[in-house]
């Protein structure tokens, strides 16, 4: 199984299905954790810093962490996107952050940061999976 690796970092493929699942769960829970696990520390650090910063800026801009309200399809989709960020999303919900202030001028900007951060983390998780199975 061939994997690409840079001079600065060596990739470790996780060929066992159980390990792959754990890598994906870690990648979902903490942005970049899957890449750290697989030996791609530089990529993991970029994901950790970038996505965490986007999440925090989204909260600072009075964005909302949407609830899973299936009667409102767009709200449910936004909630799904928010949930892509794993533990920061769980912590935000548990601490009552991200209630959103709809009258704030930055409300929609905040929502955009929070939604895009979650969606990007889904991409990062898929990338970790691809590395794990040896595709990259």
């Amino acid at each position, binding site marked *: 199984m061939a994997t690409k690796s*840079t001079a600065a970092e060596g990739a470790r493929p996780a060929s066992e299905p159980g390990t792959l699942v754990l890598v994906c769960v870690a990648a979902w829970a903490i942005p970049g954790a899957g890449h750290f696990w697989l030996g791609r520390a*530089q990529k993991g650090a970029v*994901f950790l810093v970038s996505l965490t910063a*986007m999440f925090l800026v989204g909260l*600072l801009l009075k964005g909302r962490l949407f609830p899973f309200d299936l009667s409102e399809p767009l709200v449910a989709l936004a909630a799904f996107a928010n949930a892509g960020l794993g533990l920061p999303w769980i912590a935000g919900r548990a601490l009552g952050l991200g209630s959103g202030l709809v009258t704030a001028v930055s409300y929609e900007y905040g929502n955009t940061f929070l939604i895009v951060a979650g969606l*990007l983390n889904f*991409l990062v998780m898929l990338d970790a999976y691809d590395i794990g199975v040896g595709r990259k």
Partner: protein
Amino acid sequence: MTSHLLLLVAFALPVSAVFATLSRDEPRDQLRTGGMMFGGFVLAAIVLGWLMYPLPL
């Protein structure tokens, strides 16, 4: 923080970094791709902003 340009830059920076890191393996390539992507984000927003300046007619 209500500056559109500042928010645009704050958004474009991490998004460019993530996409560049996903799509390139070498740090040098990541920097080049990320820089081009970031510049594209900002430039496109400024051009579109000026194009929309006369609207509504």
